[in-house]
């Protein structure tokens, strides 16, 4: 294989692979990227077996061929080149010679056959989805995806097309839940949607994070599809496929609290600041902060026998009975972080029931936090 390529262009594509190449795996090949040169295109692949990224860029192919090279070192070399023209040529033993301006180096490579099989996504039926819409759905749910591997079905976000032809994304770790349901933009709800999508799929957290990392919010064209238990996202020359989590997502509608007649509406930035202050006094073990609602406002209180106690009252509009409940303040912070609006609505039913938090301006999403012992 021999190519002449712009180092800028190559570096941009190599960046997209870095999140999935592994450095610790016992499978040495997984730290390599597969490079294939044909026609006037260089195609690059990387995989950690759960997430695979393929991308390509144009180049001058002097001799078609393929090879695998250490993805991290290749990226480190290419991104630091001064000259924009890079010539890459492989030797019999699969080593690669790189020449650019006054720089030349050789790096170790292996036979392309050593690379794990690549999922062929060329025939996947694709549904367009607005990039911003997808990234927003991820932002609103990724923080409450479980990290507990013993309950694998919770270590991803549940994604489906609802009976109302909305897109739904839900995540829960058993202590909290985030849900967003939004009408699809660009997406044709009349299209023949695969059954798996109407039943729902579970996309692992790392897959979501990787989409977040490499899909540019300005990329206008994003589409997705399903193939062989993978969800595939495509934008421009790049396609990212994520192995779905087997198993069924729990019936989260059971957890959703009934709507309270009395919502408390607070100013978000003030609540956020107050929480930051009071949480300084929260126990480092339980992270417990007590929220009490009454006509005097929303009182935040925390105490720790080793440090002391603090309280702060935030003015709210509230007309219901006095109620209180204890929460892990980190969960509250995560929710406040996901809400972009100026106001936040809190519905505490009683000490034991889950509490509903929302952005009053965006009813399509909601957050549930389970209370702790007071």
């Amino acid at each position: 294989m021999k190519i002449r390529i712009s180092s800028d262009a190559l570096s941009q594509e190599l960046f997209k692979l870095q999140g999935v190449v592994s450095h610790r795996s016992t499978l040495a090949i997984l730290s390599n990227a597969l490079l294939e040169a044909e026609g006037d295109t260089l195609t690059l692949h990387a995989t950690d077996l759960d997430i695979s990224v393929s991308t390509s860029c144009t180049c001058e192919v002097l001799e078609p061929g393929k090879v695998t090279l250490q993805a991290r070192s290749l990226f480190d070399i290419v991104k630091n080149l001064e000259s924009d023209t890079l010539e890459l040529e492989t030797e019999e033993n699969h080593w690669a010679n790189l020449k650019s301006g006054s720089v030349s180096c050789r790096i170790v490579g292996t036979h392309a056959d050593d690379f794990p099989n690549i999922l062929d996504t060329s025939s996947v039926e694709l549904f367009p989805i607005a990039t911003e819409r997808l990234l927003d759905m991820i932002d609103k749910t990724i923080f409450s995806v479980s990290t507990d591997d013993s309950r694998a079905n919770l270590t991803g976000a549940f994604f489906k097309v609802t009976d109302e032809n909305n897109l739904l994304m839900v995540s829960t770790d058993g202590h909290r839940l985030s849900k967003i349901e939004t009408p699809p933009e660009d997406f044709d709800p009349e299209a023949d949607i695969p059954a798996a999508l109407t039943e729902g799929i579970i996309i692992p957290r790392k897959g979501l994070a990787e989409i977040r990392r490499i899909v540019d919010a300005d990329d206008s064209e994003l589409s997705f599809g399903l193939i062989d238990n993978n969800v595939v996202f495509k934008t421009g020359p790049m396609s990212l496929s994520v192995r779905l989590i087997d198993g069924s997502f729990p019936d989260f509608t059971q957890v959703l609290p009934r709507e309270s007649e009395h919502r408390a509406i607070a100013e978000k930035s003030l609540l956020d600041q107050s929480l930051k202050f009071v949480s300084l006094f929260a126990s480092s073990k339980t992270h417990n902060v007590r929220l009490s609602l009454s006509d005097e406002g929303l009182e935040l209180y925390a105490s720790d026998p080793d440090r002391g106690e603090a309280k702060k009252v935030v003015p709210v509009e509230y007309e219901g009975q006095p109620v209180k409940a204890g929460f892990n303040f980190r969960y509250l912070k995560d929710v406040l972080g996901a809400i972009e609006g100026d106001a936040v609505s809190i519905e505490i039913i009683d000490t034991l029931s889950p509490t509903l938090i929302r952005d009053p301006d965006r009813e399509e999403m909601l957050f549930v936090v389970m209370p702790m012992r007071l």
Partner: protein
Amino acid sequence: MKNWNEILGNKRVRDVLARAVSTKRLHHAYLFTGPVGVGKHTTAHALAASLNCDQRHPEEFTPNCGQCRTCRLTAERQHPDLFFVEPPNRVITIDQIRQLQKACVSAPYEANYRVVLIDECHAMKEEAANALLKTLEEPPDQMILVLITDQPHRLLDTIISRCQRVRFGALDRQEIARVLPEFIDEPVDAAVLEVAAGYGEGSLGRSVDILQSGMLAERADLVRKISQVEANAPRAWLELAEELSDETQDFEYRIDVLTVFFRDMMLTKRAEPTRVVNSDLQELVEEMAQKFSVQAILTTLDALMSARYRLAGHVNKQLLAEDLVDRLRDPDSRALDRPS
């Protein structure tokens, strides 16, 4: 890694496994038990290759071709659907089991089966074993777990009962002698190969080890030293103890070498020379057998075996060697047949 058909001995075991594949009665979990070095790991590794070989017959068991990409990557332990667990430091940790479980939640990446080999599975502490139980109770589809051990008595009953047990037996001595040259760099005398095969007691692994240790060449010297040092020359005995215990690994081999040699002396005394392992040193065996009484040989064997047992634990090897030498030199219990 050996190809399925080239594996030494235990053909019955391989037939059972092959039949299980052909009749689609392959179990989710196997427990391979039997002595060290008789091909348990080799068989599991070759089974993995055979199950996934690109050239395999879709309906019945076919031995791995050894040529295709899958066979090559499997042999190099670089196949994405092959998972090895082995104790890094005498213990298999719960983290290793969790990693394995994480890797196995989804279907095989590209192969027919995902195969997991847990070597020295008795090295799982209780919490690791309990974690593995979960996988054994609800094994994912298309996954084959092979647990390997020479010490099944150290496993939880709950683990044993959830695996299909496959017992490996000792290998044939002639067979071992035949394949030994493949494992060593320099050519060795056929007579010495026979001896090494005898020392292995049916374990190819142990035969290779003893051959590579170079101890077989030292045999005659070692035996002569033991028999020649004067009973009342304490300095010489201490030096011998030091020499014996030079390196822990070598100390083990030396004890093994002496044990087999004294056993041969016993066989010679009982006029059963055909079973003698040190066949190339027949004369020395006979000469030594003349020098020692039956009682002295038994006492010596006893001392050697207890030393070998204690060496496996945490002991001061120098002290152990001195104690051993002391037991060997005691003229009463050694009961030398002195020329009258």
